[in-house]
């Protein structure tokens, strides 16, 4: 097809009589003759091609780049921590937790005996061994850091809501540190959240430790808020 094609004609031969096929070819040629490609049109089309090609090449993100906002480079940047920093956090938490386990196992902490399923004033919901966590039968980290008191923000085991219920404590699934995160998800552009959520998942996985993290690093919770507003 194009201005130069005369043979084969319009694709009507398969089911039209010869005369109609000839007519079709002539009609088509007549219309195409008045619709020739112009140099200007070609330049414009090629420019569009170039722009699209260059945009495609430029859009390939560098590894680790998050594309979901400029605030990435502002105050939040320090929190775009790489693995080494997270590992350091993890090591810190682990050491604290282990210390707590050690303390609890020697009975140094009141109300933190992991075997006692009865409610305790510290964190009633956590006295019961959470399932799937054989190494941490309770949440000794909370008693470690705070004096034993009923604390409304201690529930840290969203997977064990029942255990909170019968102690009369309110179920509080949205936690101070995490509250805004589910809200943040719909605000992000569709492509980006996959990148953003990856680093957050490990932290959320340690959600039950957020209470301690919040207590140890209150400024972090404050930083989470502006981040989540995005």
């Amino acid at each position, binding site marked *: *097809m*194009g201005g130069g*094609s005369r043979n084969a004609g319009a*694709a009507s031969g398969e089911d039209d009589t010869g005369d109609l096929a000839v007519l*079709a070819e002539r009609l*088509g040629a007549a219309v*195409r003759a008045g619709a020739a490609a112009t140099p200007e049109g070609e330049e414009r*089309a090629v420019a569009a*091609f170039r722009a699209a090609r260059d945009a495609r090449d430029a859009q390939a993100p560098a590894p680790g780049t998050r594309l979901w906002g400029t605030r990435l480079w502002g105050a939040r940047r320090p929190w775009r921590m790489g693995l080494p920093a997270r590992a350091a956090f993890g090591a810190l938490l682990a050491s604290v937790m282990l210390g707590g386990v050690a303390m609890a196992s020697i009975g140094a902490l009141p109300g933190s005996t992991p075997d006692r399923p009865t409610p305790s004033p510290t964190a009633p919901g956590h006295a019961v061994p959470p399932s799937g966590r054989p190494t941490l039968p309770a949440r000794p980290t909370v008693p470690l850091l705070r004096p034993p008191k009923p604390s409304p923000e201690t529930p840290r085991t969203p997977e064990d809501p029942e255990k909170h219920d019968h102690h009369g404590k309110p179920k509080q699934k949205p936690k101070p540190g995490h509250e805004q995160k589910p809200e943040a998800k719909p605000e992000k552009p569709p492509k980006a959240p996959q990148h953003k959520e990856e680093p957050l998942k490990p932290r959320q996985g340690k959600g039950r430790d957020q209470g301690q993290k919040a207590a140890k690093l209150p400024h972090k919770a404050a930083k989470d808020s502006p981040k989540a507003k995005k």
Partner: protein
Amino acid sequence: MQARDGELGAAVARAQQGDEAAFATAYRLVQPGLLGYLRGLVGDEAEDVAAEAWLEIARDLGRFSGDGAGFRGWTATIARHRALDLLRRQKVRPRAAAFEPDLVELPGPHSTSEQALETLSTERVLALIAELPREQGEAVLLRVVVGLDGPAAARVLGKRPGAVRTSAHRGLQRLAEELGVRGNGEERSGTKDKRRR
């Protein structure tokens, strides 16, 4: 399959690899059919719609997969969507669209069919096509101007191939009658004897 479809398919493949000159080649091969088709759909605004279509074609080139004939069908689909968008917007601004009957002088009964065919101009053909029922007109445009085969035209229109084939056939027959060319084989030839009717 049109004569230069092999060349077109090769150019498109190279363009998809980033070859600018190949894209220019594809443009030159496709534009007459595409613009002619758009003239049939939107008349005077065909150039603007074609430019929009090429922007989209350039941007989405990576999504295309096929040969030269397939590329003509794919680009016609894009062009058609742009044209329909324009027509929808134009509903608030009534203007003579190509499918409204235009006041065009047609060859009088005294002119022979051969002369009629020889003096076919773009405008006249488009005017004739514009007088067809819309389904026939679109089918004729795609088959005749863009050069798509039945199944390809049906894909562009989103219709069954049989329906499109019928529409194109009927449209061509009506055009033949308008031009004095009989579709049943009795094409009048006036080159030698003008008194022959």
